[in-house]
C-alpha cells in the first residue's frame, strides 16, 4: 500500500492507504476528521468540500495519493481555537443551517466564494456559486444571507 503525506489543518500527517482511497476517506477514516461528510456518490452535493492548496475541492472526487504534499484544510481547522471563523459565525448568526450535514461543505465552499469574490459579493453571485452544494433543509435563503454576511466580515 502506498504511503501518502500531506498537511492537514497545518499539521503534517501521513498514512498507508490503498491507492484507491479517496481524500474524504483518508480524512474521515484514517485521520478521524469526520466533519467532512459524504452525501452522494456522483460529486453533486458538496457535503465533502475541503480546501486543497487554498481552493475549494470535493474530497470525494480526488484520491488521497493525488494530494501528496498538498495543504488541505477541513472544517475542523477553520476556527481559531475557541473563536469561530467569521463564516462559521455568520452561519450560526443567520441560521444558515438546520440538520448540519451539508454545513461543513457549505462553509468551506462559502469561504472559497468570499476569497474569490471579496466582501461585497452579491446574492445572485452567491446563488450561482453554490451550484455545487445541495442543502435539503434551509431552502438556501439563510445560507445566502450568511455567506454575504460572512464574506463582509472576512473583508474587514
Amino acid at each position, binding site marked *: 500500500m502506498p504511503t501518502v503525506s500531506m498537511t492537514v489543518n497545518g499539521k503534517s500527517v501521513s498514512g498507508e492507504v490503498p491507492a484507491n482511497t479517496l481524500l474524504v476517506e483518508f480524512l474521515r477514516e484514517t485521520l478521524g476528521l469526520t466533519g467532512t461528510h459524504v452525501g452522494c456518490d456522483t460529486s453533486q*452535493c458538496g457535503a465533502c468540500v475541503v480546501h486543497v492548496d487554498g481552493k475549494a475541492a470535493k474530497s470525494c472526487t480526488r484520491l488521497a495519493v493525488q494530494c501528496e504534499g498538498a495543504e488541505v484544510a477541513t472544517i475542523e481547522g477553520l476556527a481559531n481555537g475557541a473563536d469561530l471563523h467569521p463564516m462559521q459565525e455568520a452561519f450560526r448568526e443567520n*441560521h444558515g443551517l438546520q440538520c448540519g450535514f451539508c454545513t461543513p461543505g457549505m462553509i468551506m465552499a462559502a469561504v472559497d466564494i468570499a476569497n474569490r469574490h471579496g466582501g461585497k459579493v452579491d446574492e445572485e453571485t452567491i446563488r450561482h456559486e453554490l451550484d455545487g452544494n445541495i442543502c435539503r433543509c434551509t431552502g438556501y435563503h439563510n445560507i445566502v444571507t450568511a455567506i454575504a454576511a460572512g464574506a463582509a466580515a472576512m473583508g474587514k
Partner: protein
Amino acid sequence: MSESGIGAPVRRTEDQRFVTGNGRYTDDINVAHQTYASFVLSPHAHAKIKSIDTKAAAAAPGVVAVFTGQDVADAGIGGLICGWTIHNKDGSPMQAGGHPALALDRVRYVGDHVAMVIAETLAQARAAAELVAVDYDILDSVVVTGKAKDKDAPQIHDEAPGNSVYDWAIGDKDAVDAAFKAADHVTSLDLVNNRLVPNPMEPRAAIGDFDPGTGGYTLHTTSQNPHVARLIMSAFLGLAPEHKLRVIAPDVGGGFGSKIFVYAEETLCVWAAGKIARPIKWTSSRADAFLNDAHGRDHETMAELALDKDGKMLAMRVKTVANLGAYLSTFSSAVPTYLYATLLSGQYNLPSIYCEVDAVYTNTAPVDAYRGAGRPEACYVVERLVETAARELNLDPIELRRRNFIAEFPHETPVIMTYDTGDFGASLDKALELGDYADFGKRKAASESGGKLRGIGFSTYIEACGIAPSAAVGSLGAGVGLWESAEVRVNPTGNVEVLTGSHSHGQGHETTFAQFTAARLGIPMDQVSVVHGDTDKVQFGMGTYGSRSGAVGMSAISKAVDKVIAKATKVAAHLLEASEGDIEFENGSFSVKGTDKSLAFGEVSLAAYVAHNMPEGVEPGLKEGAFYDPANFTFPAGCHICEVEIDPETGTTEIASWVAVDDFGTIINPMIVEGQVHGGIAQGVGQALTEGAVYDADTGQLLTGSFMDYCMPRADDLPSFTLGFTETVCPSNPIGVKGCGEAGAIAAPAAVINAVTDALNIKDIAMPASPATVWQAIQSSTKQAAE
C-alpha cells in the same frame, strides 16, 4: 420579552458543534472490532428467485458471513410491518402482503434486498457482494400507478388480488352526487401528484452491536423515532426484547419522513450482530438511498368541484389512485387516507365531500410519508380546483376564496376534522399586502416588455398537525397512540435536563425546548440541556414527524414543568414558613406575597435534594415526568403567493417572488420557524418545478437514481422569501402552538402551478413543470390558438 424569552430569535445551541465539524452522525461513529455490511439488491423489478449461491462470496477475502432470506426466516425473524390498518369500503381490512427483510422467493422492485454480506472492510464486503450469484426468473412488472389494477397487470402479492391494497372512501356520496346534479358550474381536473425522493443529505446508516455478556443489543441508527423503531423491532420482528435493545439516534442529518420507518438494513444489522457476535456497520450510498428510502406522493386523481352561479362551493368529488410501491412501509397506508382526504375541505365551507382512494401495489420502492404526507396532495387538489374554478367563472381567485372561507370556529368539516381556530382572511390580507398584489399588473406588463410571461398563483392552505389524539387515531386503525412524553430533571445545583421523546434532526429542539423551559423556570437558557434520541436515557416517546414536536412534544414538557413548579412551590413554602397559596413564582424566584422573603429556584432544588427539611409527605428530589395526549389535531393555515416569470424561448420558469403568511399559533423562536418555512417552500418548489422520480415503464428500472438525474433544487433555482405571520392561538394545547414543519411543502406546489398556468393561460400542466414541459405547453397552446 427577554433576549432568550418565548418569542425571541435565540441563536441555536446545536450550531456550535455543526459549524465546527463536531456533529456526531451515525457514520461518524466507529465501534471497536466492527465489521461492514453490504447488501445484494435486486436488479430486476419483479422476478422469482430460483436459487442463490453464496459459496464464492463466503470464500472471498475478509468475509465474515453471508446471509440470505432463508437464514432470516429460519431464525424466526418476522417481516417488516405496516402499523396502520385501513379498512375497505365493505369494512374488511386491507390486503397486505408480507415484507421479509431479505427476499425469500421473489423480488418485487429494483433494490429489493436479497442477501447481506459482512466483511472485515467495506471494500471486501462490496467486492464479495458482487460474487453472490442469484438466478432470477424475470416476471412482468408494473410501475405506473394507474396501470396497477389493469387486467393484464402482473400480480405482485398473492394476498392482494388485482394489486389492490384497499379501496377506501370517506364522505357522503349521495349528498355529493345530488349537489353536483343541482350545481350551476362544475370544475374538473385530472391531477398527478408526482413521485418524490425525500433525499435528506445524510444517507441512512446503522451500526448493530451485541454484548454477549449482557445479551443486550445496541443500534445506532438514523431514526426520527428511536423508541418506535425499538418497539417494532422487538414486538413484531422479534429481534430482542425491548429492555435488551438500546436504540440510539445521534445527530441525524435531515429526515423529512424517510427516517421514520423501520427498514431492512438496520433490522439486519441488529440481528446479524447477534449471529456473528461482532458489531456491524452499514452506510447507504446515495444510489441505494434513491432505490430504497421510502418515496413520497405518487397519486393519480380525478377531482371535481361543484359551485352555484355566485361561486358558492357546493360539493367536492375526488377519486384517487395512490401508489404504495412493492411493500407497505411503516405508516404508508395512512398517508393517502387519513392524512389526505380529511384535509380536502381546505379553508372552505364545503357542505359535502366524497373521496374514494384506491391504494395499489406496484413494482417500485415503497411509498410512505414525506414532508407533509398526504396534506400536500390534498392542498394540491383543493387549491388547483379553486384557482381553476375562479378562472372558469371569470372571478378573481381572491374573491372566490373569500366567498367560501370558513369564518366561524370550531368548524366541523364533512371529512371528520374539527378546525379549532383560524383567521383565513387575515393571512390572505397580510399576504396580499406584503406581496403588493395591487401592483401585479404593472409587474406583469414589465415582464412582458422584456419578452417574459408573468403569472401569479395563490395557495390558501390548511393542514392537520400535532399528530395526534391517541383514541382518535386508534379508532381509525393506527397500531399506536400518538401522545408524547417528557421528563424534566432538575439537578441539585439548579440546572435542568429535559428528556424528550421527540427527536431533532434539524428542527433545533435543543434550542426551542431549552428556550421554552428556561423561560418557564426563569433560569438562564444555558442552564438547560435537552436530551433526546437514546432509548436508554429517555423514557418511551413517539418521535418527530407530522409537525408534532412543538404541539405535542413541547406540551409534554410544559406539563412536566408545571409539576416541577408545583412541587418546588411546596418545598419553598415550607422553607419560607408560608402557606403554599402565598407563594409566587416569577423570574426564577419563589417569594412570599407582600414580603421580601424569597428563595431562588436553585436554592429550592438544592433543598429538595439535600432533603434535611422537607414538608410532611413530600419525597426528596425534583424530577417530574409527563405524558401529553393531544385533545385534537392542530390546524396551521395561511396564504402563499408565488409569482413566476417564464422565458417562452426556453421554457425556463423563474420564481420571481414568494410571499408566505402563516398562522402557526404561538411562536417560541421565530428564527427557527422561518427556517422551517423556507425549507418547506423549497421542497414544494422542487416538487412543482424540478423533482420527479421516474421508473421505466417497461423494465421497472429507476431512471432518476442519482443527483445527476433527479433534480434537487439548488440555490439558483430559488428566490429569497418574504415571510409574515398572523396568530390565532391554538386552544387545544397548553402552549398555543400549531406546528410549522410542513407548511411550506404543503402550500407551495399549488401556488407554483397556479402561477405557471396563469402565466401560460392554460388549464393545467404536469409537475414537475420543467423547462421541457413548459416549452411543450407553450408550443401546444400556440398551435391550438393558430388552429
